[in-house]
């Protein structure tokens, strides 16, 4: 008996592979690999397409077999679908001349490709990029030193023109200020009217006088601004495209002139950095397909921030009640089921609820109580960052509640008893012991909620996101934080630029860049939260309990 059992141990028994579990281990490994691969591929595609957009690519000049010329940036080579060799997609720019930014050229028609040093790329305020050659300057007021090279002369004239925009900008700010004053005046009168003050009351008369003064100032400033702008627009340069068609471009319309074919690598890096900075800090141009993303970045971050401020305390308090104070019973069970189900409701439903309840309901009441004089123009009764944050907050509250409850219930009973046995009240126990110990788990819920909120677009579209917001929700005007304002959002930006843009092909790079930024922002914010959580964990580690 004894020897037979030890023999059994010595000879390795061949079990069926199902009993051994090897296929199961392979399946788990394969599932993980597949998931990782999909994520990595997604990120690589986004980064490959996003990071290259800002680089100053060379301008190629194609001499065609028929003797004509085409210039532009090579986008891609591909097979001609019907056979007959390859073709190349060129970004030819010059939308004002050709009406299309892109052009396919069959490889067979190309006689020669060159990269001329004097090829110029201009980023412009409108009509997209211009690719071509400088012909001559046509200056009025601005003078350039004689005997300079044409390109140098152009750059110095352009710099001078840009400098001259500063007084115009000051005027434009003055115009804006006056128009705000006039609006305030109008609202004061509307308020008085609303209160039933007669039109010949002294207050009213004063306001009307002030209004006409403001109006006169406004007209005068605006006229001056227009005059100066018109004068500055007389400073132009004439450019020719590859085929020799000319175009006169006002210097102030040029955002960034460069000659990519002569740029050294450091110069290109510098150019890249300046474009990157523009992306992060400037406003969008050309219906969002060019320029920066600052308002969208700001809107996204502020939205997540506001959402957290609103949903986090609400969720944590609700969870504390459910876990610590509520008596267990069918009611609490029902609440638990409801909370878990709330997390699964499609976000658009939250959006519609936000629109109906917050925007029209609460917003409408706020307007009729506090902003009655502005009606029928709504103040809070229309989409805005406050309502969007509240809607997102509602959407993420269940996540916070579930995570917080789990964190609270994972605090050992012994710790609570120890605290009670030392004469601590329930609140003292909660505040001094249970909450600190649960804080890493609560943080996890917070991170999950934040990630979910950052990725939502659907509910925002009907509660206050816009394609282009004229001003940020926080600025230098009293009361500095404007929660009623509409805002821009990176997620919506992706949708809008990628699918609602009049020039989808030209907007494609922006979609990748925006996606990259959105992912980056979510990454930064959750890394920050994870760092905080690891500090909390270190502080309140459970040790050997």
């Amino acid at each position: 008996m004894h020897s037979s059992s030890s023999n059994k141990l010595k000879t390795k028994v061949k079990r069926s592979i199902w009993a051994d579990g090897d296929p199961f281990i392979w399946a788990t490994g394969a599932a993980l690999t597949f998931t990782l691969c999909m994520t990595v591929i997604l990120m690589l595609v986004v980064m490959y397409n996003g990071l290259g957009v800002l680089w100053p690519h060379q301008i190629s000049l194609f001499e065609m077999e028929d003797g004509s010329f085409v210039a532009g940036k090579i986008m891609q080579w591909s097979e001609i679908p019907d056979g007959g060799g390859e073709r190349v997609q060129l970004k030819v720019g010059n939308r004002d001349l050709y009406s299309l930014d892109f052009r396919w050229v069959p490889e067979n028609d190309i006689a020669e490709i060159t990269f001329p040093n004097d090829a110029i790329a201009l980023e412009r305020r409108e009509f997209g990029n211009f690719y071509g050659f400088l012909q001559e300057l046509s200056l009025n007021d601005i003078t350039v030193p004689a005997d300079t090279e044409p390109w140098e002369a152009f750059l110095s004239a352009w710099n001078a023109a840009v400098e001259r925009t500063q007084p115009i900008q000051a005027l434009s700010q003055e115009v804006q200020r006056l128009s705000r004053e006039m609006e305030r005046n109008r609202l004061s009168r509307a308020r008085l009217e609303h209160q039933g003050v007669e039109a010949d009351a002294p207050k009213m008369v004063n306001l009307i006088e002030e209004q006409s003064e403001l109006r006169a100032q406004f007209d005068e400033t605006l006229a001056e601004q227009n005059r100066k702008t018109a004068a500055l627009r007389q400073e132009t340069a004439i450019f020719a495209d590859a085929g020799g068609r000319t175009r006169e471009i006002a210097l102030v319309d040029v955002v960034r002139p460069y000659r990519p074919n002569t740029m050294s690598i450091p110069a290109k890096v510098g150019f890249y950095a300046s474009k990157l900075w523009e992306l992060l800090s400037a406003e969008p141009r050309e219906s969002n397909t060019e320029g920066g993303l600052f308002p969208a970045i700001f809107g996204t971050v502020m939205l997540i921030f506001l959402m957290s401020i609103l949903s986090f305390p609400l969720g944590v308090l609700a969870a504390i009640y459910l876990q610590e104070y509520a008596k267990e019973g069918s009611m609490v069970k029902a609440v638990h089921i409801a909370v878990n189900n709330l997390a699964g409701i499609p976000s658009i439903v939250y959006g519609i609820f936000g629109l109906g309840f917050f925007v029209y309901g609460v917003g409408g009441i706020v307007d009729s109580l506090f902003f009655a004089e502005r009606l029928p123009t709504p103040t809070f009764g229309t989409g805005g960052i406050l309502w969007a944050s509240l809607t997102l907050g509602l959407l993420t509250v269940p996540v916070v509640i579930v995570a917080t409850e789990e964190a609270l219930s994972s605090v050992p009973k012994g710790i609570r008893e120890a605290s009670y046995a030392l004469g601590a009240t329930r609140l003292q126990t909660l505040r001094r012991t249970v909450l600190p110990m649960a804080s890493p788990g609560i943080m996890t819920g917070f991170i999950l909620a934040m990630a979910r909120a950052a990725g939502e677009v659907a509910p925002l579209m009907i509660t206050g996101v816009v394609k282009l917001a004229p001003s940020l929700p926080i600025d230098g005007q009293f009361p500095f934080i404007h929660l009623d304002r509409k805002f821009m959002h990176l997620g919506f930006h992706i949708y809008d630029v990628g699918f609602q843009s009049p020039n989808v092909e030209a907007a494609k790079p922006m979609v990748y860049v925006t996606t990259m930024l959105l992912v980056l922002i979510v990454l930064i914010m959750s890394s920050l939260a994870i760092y905080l959580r690891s500090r909390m964990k270190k502080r309140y580690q459970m040790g050997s309990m």
Partner: protein
Amino acid sequence: MTQLVTSVIEDPIVRTRNLNLYYSGAQALFNISMDFPRNQVTALIGPSGCGKSTLLRCLNRMNDLIIGVTVDGSILLEDIELDDPDLDVVELRRQVGMVFQKSNPFPNTIFENVVYGLRIAGMNNREELRVTCERSLQQAGLWDEVKDRLHESALGLSGGQQQRLCIARAIAINPQVVLMDEPCSALDPRSTARIEDLIAELREQYTIVIVTHNMQQAARVSDYTGFLYEGVLIEFGLTKKIFTKPNEKQTEDYITGRFG
């Protein structure tokens, strides 16, 4: 129902009279009438589930935390009725401290663990906290081992040290009675011996009630012993007497290891 008060105790600090306790209707303690002598160590012994921990937890109303527990009868600390809904439970627990089976230090520094009870009572004078911390740790025989790392995490201590820290924490608020619920059951023999020595020292100042599974321990540390069986106090008396000449057959059977 028999009522047993087997010893007459002079000037007891805690008395229970006809104490019955029910867990959601199921009775766990039957008519317990028992006197706990002042400045002595009283051991409660009995097989698992006999109600000794439940009885212990009645003395500082820890059973309040369990839903569905109802109590009738009377528990008196000095002459104050404890089973009174208007009683200030927080104050009671400051008078009747407790040490648990599993050591449960807070995930905080050693110092903060000891002064927890003082802080929640609103004391924030650093010097006073420091003095009390040192006194309590000294009483708990832990001072020499931890005096250089008071501001390190209490979770870095060994199991025995953690349990002595819990004792220090309980006596820092100067209770009259210290309840100990199987304080050594998770410790090795050496740590157990240290805690037993500690109990012997502490009885000079405090009344101690200890629940234990370990008969030798009860015999070693206690002055009085109560034997509970199925929620009934079978016998209560001087430890010497219970362990040598018990009055009841059940007690003898349990002590000699015939059951339980």
